[in-house]
């Protein structure tokens, strides 16, 4: 009896861990499985490539615009230069 306790412990802990895993996959993660195993299909589309290049060139031509893939928050933002004028006394 005494010797069998470690085995009981191991079984209980395994069941607990298994239960925990089962509970985990009940959430949104349960939807993720098969989609992620499908490799992305590469399609040659020269017309689309040309469109995308044109779009990116137009964005690049704008003097102050951020580039594709770059967030405005990627820029260092110095609040000392921030354009908020908070002298509200003269506001109205």
């Amino acid at each position, binding site marked *: 009896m005494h010797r069998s306790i470690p085995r009981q*412990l191991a079984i209980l802990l395994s069941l607990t861990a298994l*239960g925990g895993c089962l509970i985990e996959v009940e959430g949104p993660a349960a939807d993720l499985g098969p989609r992620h195993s499908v490799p992305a299909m590469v399609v040659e589309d020269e017309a*689309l490539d040309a469109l995308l290049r044109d779009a990116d060139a*137009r*964005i690049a031509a704008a003097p102050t*615009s951020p580039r594709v893939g770059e967030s405005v*928050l990627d820029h260092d933002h110095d609040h000392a230069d921030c*354009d908020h004028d908070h002298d*509200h006394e003269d506001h*109205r």
Partner: protein
Amino acid sequence: MIAAARALVLVLVFSLGLRLPAQDPPRLKVVVTLPYIGEVVREIGGGLVGVVVLLDAGQDPHDVQVSPGMTGELKEARLFIENGMTLESFTPRLLAAAGEGFLLPGQGGHAWASDGIVAIEKPDPAALAAGGHVHAAGNPHIWLDPVNLKIVARNIEKALGRSLYQYKDELAGRRADLEARLDEAMFGAELVKLLGGKRLEQLHRTGALRDFLETREYRGKPLATRAGGWWARARKLPSKRFISFHKTWSYFEAAFGLEIAGTLEEKPGIPPSPAHLAELARIARDRDVRAVIAPPYYPRSRIEGFAAQVDLRTLVLPSQPGEEGAPRDLFGHFDRLFELLESVGAGR
């Protein structure tokens, strides 16, 4: 034997403990000035935040008295978010009365929703000196361009992340989801799939989108005809020319290719002169304007009086979610705006 039983009990308790529901996450109290900011905070923060919106839908943000109730809300707030660009002139008084130093601009408990948005209609010094209700930082009604809401969402994700840093992935996921839904609602699923939401956003922000979509084709169809969402609805509006009361709709006008032919306010916050009204009436007749548009908080009798004089429709438009019967969510608000604008027919 007793030791074994104790061990077994401990293991059972431990196992049960693992199966108990996770502890509720903290709810960060966030106080915001405007309804649209509240909606973006709810979108990004989900169940992690409790949001208090200080201004009621339909309340003029330019003209707000600080009340003890407002000050009281700030006592327990961990984050205060305002639009900025001098729209909410009451917030310096409010924050001073609340006396919570960490909610002041520049501190960790304060954020500007409009941070990083390029302002339009920045006044020259002469306009500022002429008086009236002039916004020194430019037109502050930034949320009426849905693409600006993506920048607002990033600002709010960043601000919430300062306090909820252990939930950063969750906040980022909700922000990305909101951005994707805004892209699709703005441009339609087909165009987003073809060009990508980020590229569309940047074309839009540089002012190059309309010409690009109107002049380029893909597989024999002009790109503009592949657009859906609000962008396509705006393109099909029977009438795109309006007179507004105040410069509320400038970002909406720019985003959707409309034309605000004039404003009833000669200078913001100052009643118009008879000469200004006569000139506006001439513009309305010459340029085939069909309606005067205004949020509900401007003097309706003055607007309707002018509209009747020039035989225009008066269209009261919600400038915020939840205003004038509009749904409380960001998407329902823009849907309602387009429903109302579509009701203005091609003829008078």
